[in-house]
């Protein structure tokens, strides 16, 4: 297509000008006498091919220049892809709109989401009556707003305008694949375009690295990156409570993980507990610990406390608050099972370690079934075996639901007595009396980072024990691990997770009959750690990530009856009931709104916060994507990237109608003119390295010799 095709005639005429001039030049040739033509003929014979080539090149250059000038003024319109006549062909257009919460980023002119919707509307409005469109939303899973190509623009635009930005992350790969399939399914003879509208965030593109989108080579891709070039955002991505279970009166440390995008700047974190500010941290931009600031929780009453960490208002407000629950429990005692003499050191250690007399309850093994085990932080068996089957079942059930069992052996039970247990980390094979020469043992930490021993090593030095007798173990259970050893392949303390709880087993007894372990400096702290460890194992998570479904039965096993769950905005949350393996299982659905979800039961009709839900914080990382990487990531040849609506319109026009290359042709003609000028001058002046002129001195001596290889 040409804007001014009249100039094509000029191009044609212009192209013949050099030839005409050449012919006219030949006609006007001057006739001159010359002494002899012999040498001219020889020279012509030698250089005729070269001359013909030079003349041809000159003619070609001049013809090209004239033709290009004519064509440049004719203003050719060329489409980047496809043929020119396809500019009017009907097309199917798919719009993939990023619906992640990062699209809620505020810019000078509204949010990115608003700009995205406007772009999508503009794309639809720019379609002709023959064109069709479909709309897909890129979320965690793609969602079809208009699943199949339709022509009804008004309805599509209305649906778009009714949309709100999502509160999840997004993956572009599956959404592009869904759009591609919809286009290919509709009609493969039409021209196809996929418009991807997103912010400039790199995250949604990362899904393409692991899950390639289905891309058709004939489909044109228009990517609108509507986010700002250098976004800034700060938010808490996660928190951690230490210890995980908060006991009334105990010191609890809260560590927040801070996620920042953009240029480093000072920020402030505020901790709110029950809507009252409980702490504040100012974080300098260059603070090396800025990524994980910590708070010390104030003294809290027993119960569930709604807490949040707030960052200052920024352009992405949705992630400024991080919600969590602090469940403060009353102090729980440990249950020590064994006779008085054998548990003497143990009781003393626990009472001393926790600083209170009610830190433990001591019973004999006959009394164990009388006690409800769930009221204890841990159960410690001191030479308490063998136990009746009913007691074993009760203890194993206790461990399964999150309890901790600590087993100290003794002479009361032979190795066969352990066979009745299913939860032990290793099955004893013998009680071994050690010779005098092997009694002195140095303990080694096999799992130095284990919660039990992580803080134990500091200040104690190398623990050395005199061990007279030990429990020898066979092969440990496959899920068991050795935490402390007293020599090669001789475990001292082993652990096995069982259900939601753990079983710890020592190789020596808790009294002095087997070793001097009760007298060693790390007996007390190790026992205290065991009791604390038991308290932490059953701790529930302080927050949940936004999800479509969450099991209430798992979170609240003691709950009876159907609860009433409310969303942060007060709307009721659907609780679905189903029967699995004969048990009734309750699942809360659509916990996607960040905030606290109060739950009311028959026992507690007033309701209490059951969950603190946060949006996945991956989306808070607004690190921008590199424009140049997008075509590679998409794997589509016809990919253009626009950064605003005006640029998108221009690119669409270029694709559909084409763009004029008149200016390019003018530049090309100019370059060829320069080349022609240089080349023609070079030929006129003789080339470098050409034959030198014959020089003759005053006395007639010829000074310059001609090349010898020329035949005359």
């Amino acid at each position, binding site marked *: 297509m040409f804007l001014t095709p009249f100039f094509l005639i000029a191009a044609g005429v212009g192209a013949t000008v050099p030839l005409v001039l050449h012919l006219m030049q030949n006609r006007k040739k001057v006739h001159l006498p010359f002494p002899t033509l012999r040498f*001219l003929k020889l020279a012509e014979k030698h250089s005729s091919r070269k001359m013909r080539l030079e003349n041809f090149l000159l003619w070609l250059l001049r013809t090209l220049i004239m033709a290009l000038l004519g064509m440049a003024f004719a203003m050719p319109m060329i489409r980047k892809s496809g043929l020119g006549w396809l500019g009017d062909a009907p097309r199917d257009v798919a719009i993939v709109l990023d619906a992640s919460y990062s699209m809620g980023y505020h810019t000078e002119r509204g949010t990115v989401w608003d700009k995205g919707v406007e772009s999508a509307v503009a794309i639809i409005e720019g379609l002709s009556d023959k064109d069709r469109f479909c709309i897909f939303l890129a979320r965690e899973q793609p969602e079809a707003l208009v699943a199949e190509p339709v022509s009804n623009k008004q309805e599509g635009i209305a649906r778009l305008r009714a949309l709100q930005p999502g509160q999840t992350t997004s993956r572009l790969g599956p959404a592009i694949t869904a759009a591609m399939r919809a286009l290919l399914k509709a009609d493969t003879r039409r021209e196809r375009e996929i418009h991807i509208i997103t912010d400039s965030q790199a995250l949604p593109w990362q899904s393409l690295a692991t899950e390639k989108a289905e891309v058709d080579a004939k489909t044109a891709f228009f990517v609108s990156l509507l986010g700002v070039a250098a976004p800034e955002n700060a938010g808490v991505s996660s928190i951690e409570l230490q210890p995980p279970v908060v006991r009334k009166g105990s010191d609890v440390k809260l560590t927040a993980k801070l996620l920042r995008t953009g240029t480093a700047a000072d920020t402030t974190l505020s901790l709110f507990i029950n809507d009252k500010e409980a702490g504040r941290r100012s974080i300098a931009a260059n603070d090396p610990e800025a990524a994980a600031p910590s708070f010390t929780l104030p003294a809290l009453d027993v119960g569930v406390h709604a807490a949040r960490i707030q960052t200052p208002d920024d352009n992405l407000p949705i992630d400024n608050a991080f919600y969590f629950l602090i469940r403060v429990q009353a102090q729980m005692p440990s249950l020590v099972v064994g006779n008085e003499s054998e548990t003497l050191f143990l009781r003393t250690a626990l009472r001393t370690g926790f600083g209170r007399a009610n830190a433990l309850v001591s019973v004999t093994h006959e009394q164990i079934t009388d006690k409800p085990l769930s009221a204890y932080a841990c159960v410690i068996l001191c030479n308490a075996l063998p136990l009746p089957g009913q007691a074993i079942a009760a203890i194993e059930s206790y461990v399964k639901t999150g309890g901790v069992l600590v087993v100290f052996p003794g002479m009361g039970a032979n190795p066969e007595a352990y066979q009745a247990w299913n939860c032990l980390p290793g099955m004893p094979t013998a009680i071994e009396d050690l010779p005098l020469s092997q009694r002195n043992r140095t303990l080694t930490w096999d799992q130095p980072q284990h919660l039990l021993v992580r803080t134990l090593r500091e200040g104690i030095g190398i623990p050395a024990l005199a061990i007279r007798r030990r429990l020898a173990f066979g092969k440990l259970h496959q899920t068991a691990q050795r935490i402390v050893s007293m020599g090669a392949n001789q475990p001292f303390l082993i652990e096995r997770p069982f259900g939601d709880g753990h079983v710890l087993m020592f190789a020596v007894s808790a009294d002095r009959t087997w070793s001097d372990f009760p007298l060693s400096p790390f007996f007390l702290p190790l026992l205290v750690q065991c009791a604390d460890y038991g308290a932490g194992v059953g701790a529930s998570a302080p927050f949940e990530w936004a999800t479509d479904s969450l099991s209430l039965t798992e979170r609240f096993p003691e709950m009876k009856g159907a609860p009433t769950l409310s969303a942060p905005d007060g709307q009721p949350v659907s609780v679905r009931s189903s029967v699995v393996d004969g048990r009734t299982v309750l699942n809360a659905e659509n916990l996607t709104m960040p905030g606290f979800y109060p739950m009311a039961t028959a026992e507690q009709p007033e309701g209490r916060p059951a969950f603190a839900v946060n949006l996945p914080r991956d989306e808070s990382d607004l690190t921008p994507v590199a424009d140049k990487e997008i075509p590679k990531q998409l794997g589509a040849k016809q990919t253009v990237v626009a950064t605003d609506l005006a640029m998108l319109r221009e690119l669409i026009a270029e694709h559909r109608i084409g763009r004029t290359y008149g200016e390019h042709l003018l530049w090309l003609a100019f370059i060829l003119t320069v080349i022609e000028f240089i080349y023609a001058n070079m030929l006129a002046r003789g080339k470098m390295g050409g034959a030198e002129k014959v020089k003759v001195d005053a006395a007639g001596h010829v000074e310059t010799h001609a090349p010898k290889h020329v035949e005359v």
Partner: protein
Amino acid sequence: MASDPQPKAKARAKTEEKEGISAFLNPAEMHKLGRLVLLSRYTVEGNLAGAHRSPLRGPSSEFADHKSYGIGDETKHIDWRVFARTDKYFIKRYEDETNLRVYFALDRSASMGYASGDGPTKFEFACHLMAALGYVIVKARDSVGLFLHAEKVDVRLDAANSFQHLNNMLKHVQQHPPSEGTDIAKTLHEIAGTIRRRALVIVISDLLGDEAAIVKALAHLRKQRHDVLVFQTLDPAEIDLTFKKPCELHDLETGEHLPVNPRGLADEYRKVFGAFLEQYKKACAGMNIDYRLVPTDQPLESFVRAYLEERRRLSR
């Protein structure tokens, strides 16, 4: 671009008005040339006593050798000092000194009538050169002769030692402008056969013929023990092909026409023509022939002066 080498009316008219030596040399030029001398590098045989070495023994002051005394020898030539030493009679002999006989072999082929631009034709330049050298020769009391040739020897004048003779020679030259054909080799052979005694033969030509044959003819001259001098007179345009625009050239001798684009051809032409000149240069050097290229744009007087000075130095 070189203009059409038509005879320049004024210059030609000036030459044609006068006859003989005055048409080529003015008094000032003659005065300057009068101080120069053309010496032969080899022995020559002349008629008269002169300044040049002769193969014969004669009355001069240059001792040549001794000879045993024989009957008929004059006793006054006996070297008594040798007799005193050897008790034998020896006669002292001296080199004979004779005058120089110089023959000009002047080419008047059609190609010699070429001139580019305002300069003289090659023939005019050759005539000037001959006049200047002739004047120097006659002034030194040596003899000059002429072979004016094209396809054959058209004018032959024996060597004589007089300005009148030189004048006659130049008049003949004026009366015979460049003609159509050329056969330099043949005419040089003819000249070699004609000149009986050792002489200096000056060939003035553009040598645009069969190089091998011409070289053979020059060798013939050398075999006759003549001192040979070759002045190749060429036009600058002919040497470098200095035309700029495409033109159609026609051969002055054959009348052939050839359209050429000198711009594209110049480099290759120079190579070919350079090789052609090189052949003569080498061949002449091999035969001890003094070969000089004389472009017609070269100032004649300075050329003659430079050449004779150099030759005088070499002859000592």
